[in-house]
């Protein structure tokens, strides 16, 4: 029952007035920015990270947690009211949600998404609180060899396993790893890939890369696409309230979505959006009237939306307990911790329990705030959604500049924003996923550190990497995750999908 003591202690932190305020600011900003089409949680956090680093760590982290959850809620609003979702995890929600909105059932769709997100978020956060101490205990016993294997596994699943091309996923990952090399090597003090430029000695800012790829690259991509991505907003007609029938059809998908989404998110592997696809398929399978699917079935909104939020909370398990980000958003949150000199992982639970548990407790509060904030204010969010594109993207780039200069007020930093923005456009244009670049950039140096630590313990014998059953298992899964999809594509049955899911965020 130690967990509940910690949680109670955390609640006392989260309920402090200034932390409540940070949480409220976070969920509001998160929802507002998450609603904006084309802006996912990853960019939201990346934009706001550098401009808050003067604030108190606990408060800021609570704010980021709020932003994280808030942008998930906002994203579902976008995918229901707009035919183009802002984040790929909401693609499935758009399938049924947008159909519902078009036949005038936008209100119930938004309601089931919001309440489902609340239910899933709350249950999954309880799951996080229960699971975390257990994983921490396990993680404390892990050596550098196991950590390295775990990171390799994350690399493989984030880049290769679930995208639509192993080659492009791996290329994106190695681009990230290359960027991660830049700067002074902490163990030997030598500057790598810095070309004598002092601005590069500290390495490349994760936020600059993330903002460049997600904001500049995306803006260029949308602008050059012309009318290709023109979106239409479906107005919300009729009542926001769910009928008795809607409730009856929603509550089971909420719970099932949670049960599917949380474990998938909590695994130390990428691909958290898989849960939404699985949930959709499950609901379609179990539905009494499956013919409704594709024409606006409420189960098809309730389930995947719950799964989405549950896996978002699940993603925090490897992030907080192992320091292992498995999505672009988690990678940027990790950068946020590092900004305050904190390294998430088992030791953070031991050394700063009030911080970690305050953060976890604040997630419950964020969830409640979001439920209260979302439905009654839906009119406001719809208006945010309707910002014309010239102003929207002009504003996004203005804030991108602000974020970059806030992290480091130098011309070199601004130049990098442009450079990586061009790279981001290229990546989009040629179908490369973005998330592996960000994950590779932040996790690469950590993986190298663990590798070198392991090898110095073994005095250079590489067999230490395969020294424990756990490491061997993880490396094997990584191998299968990388090359399995290739084999799957070669031998797939006729008509089977070539990949499981999209990418991003």
């Amino acid at each position, binding site marked *: 029952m130690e967990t509940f003591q910690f949680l109670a202690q955390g609640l006392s932190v989260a309920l402090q007035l200034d932390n409540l305020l940070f949480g409220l600011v976070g969920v509001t900003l998160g929802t507002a920015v998450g609603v904006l089409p084309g802006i996912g949680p990853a960019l939201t956090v990346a934009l706001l990270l550098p*401009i*808050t680093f*003067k*604030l108190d760590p606990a408060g800021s982290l609570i704010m980021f947690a709020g932003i994280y959850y808030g942008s998930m809620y906002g994203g579902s609003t976008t995918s229901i009211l707009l035919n183009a979702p802002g984040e790929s995890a909401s693609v499935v929600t758009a399938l049924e949600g947008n159909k519902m909105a078009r036949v005038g059932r936008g209100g119930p769709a938004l309601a089931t998404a919001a309440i489902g997100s609340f239910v899933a978020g709350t249950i999954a956060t309880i799951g996080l609180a229960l699971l975390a101490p257990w994983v921490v205990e396990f993680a404390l016993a892990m050596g550098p060899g196991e950590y390295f294997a775990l990171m390799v596994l994350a690399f493989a699943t984030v880049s290769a396993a679930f995208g639509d091309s192993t*080659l492009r996923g*791996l*290329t994106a990952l*190695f*681009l990230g*790893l*290359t960027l991660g*090399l830049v700067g002074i*090597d902490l*163990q*030997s*003090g*030598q500057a*790598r*890939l810095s*070309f004598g430029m002092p601005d590069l000695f500290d390495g490349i800012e994760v936020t600059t890369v993330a903002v460049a790829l997600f904001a*500049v690259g995306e*803006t*260029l991509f949308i*602008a*050059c*696409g*012309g009318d*290709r991505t023109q979106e239409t907003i479906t107005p919300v007609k009729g009542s926001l309230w769910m009928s008795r029938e809607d409730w009856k059809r929603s509550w089971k998908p909420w719970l099932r979505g949670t049960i599917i989404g949380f474990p998938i998110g909590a695994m130390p592997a990428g691909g958290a959006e898989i849960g939404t696809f699985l949930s959709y398929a499950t609901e379609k399978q179990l539905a009494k009237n499956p013919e409704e699917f594709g024409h606006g079935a409420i189960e098809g909104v309730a389930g995947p939306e719950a799964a989405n939020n549950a896996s978002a909370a699940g993603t925090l398990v490897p992030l907080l307990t192992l320091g292992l980000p498995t999505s672009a958003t988690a990678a940027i949150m990790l950068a946020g911790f590092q900004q305050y000199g904190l390294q998430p992982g088992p030791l953070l639970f031991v050394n700063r329990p009030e911080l970690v548990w305050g953060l976890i407790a604040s997630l419950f509060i964020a969830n409640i705030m979001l439920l209260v904030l979302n439905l009654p204010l839906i009119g406001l969010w719809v208006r945010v959604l309707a910002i014309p*594109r*010239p*102003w929207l*993207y*002009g*504003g996004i*780039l*203005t*804030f991108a*500049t*602000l974020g970059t*200069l*806030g992290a480091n*007020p130098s*011309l070199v930093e*601004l130049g990098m*924003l*442009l450079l990586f*923005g*061009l790279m981001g*456009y*290229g990546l989009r*244009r*040629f*179908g490369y996923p973005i998330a592996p670049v960000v994950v590779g950039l932040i996790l690469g140096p950590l993986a*190298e550190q663990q*590798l*070198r630590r392991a*090898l*110095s313990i073994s*005095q*250079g014998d590489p067999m230490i990497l395969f020294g424990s059953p756990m490491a061997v298992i993880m490396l094997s899964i990584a191998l299968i995750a990388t090359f399995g999809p290739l084999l799957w594509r070669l031998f797939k049955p006729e008509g089977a999908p070539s990949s499981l899911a999209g990418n991003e965020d």
Partner: protein
Amino acid sequence: MTSLQSERRLDRAAFGIAVALAAVAIVIAVDTYNLPEGIASYARVGPRAFPYAIAAAMAVLAIATAIAAWRGKFPERPKDEYGPFYWIVGGLLVQLALIGWAGFAIATGAVFAATARAFGRGPLWMTYLIGVGISLAIWLAFAKGLSLVLPAGPLERMF
């Protein structure tokens, strides 16, 4: 032009990516090779091993990309308009040129105006003024309010 219908399916732009990846591999390898000998360390694995591994992987990826480009394996790309592209990149370049001495607002206004123009909104003088106004408001909020260090110019110094 890269035509998907033609007999030769070489995707030249994708082939260019392969060349770029190969160049990255070479740059990493050369840079790593030229690392000065550091302070003698206990670690058997120095700062070289990891970059070499990444360079090797990049080389393999470059070859695989070249093969994919040769076979036309890249997803089809709809035609892009390049007008908006130049506007946005131009806006960012103007900002880069101005920010050192003209300050945050005057420089960032250019980014806002150019982006609005890329999405078909003008006239430029109006969007520029709006952009300067927004940027100035942002500067006031973050430089004064959150004590962030942001470049100041003549406009900012009035406050």
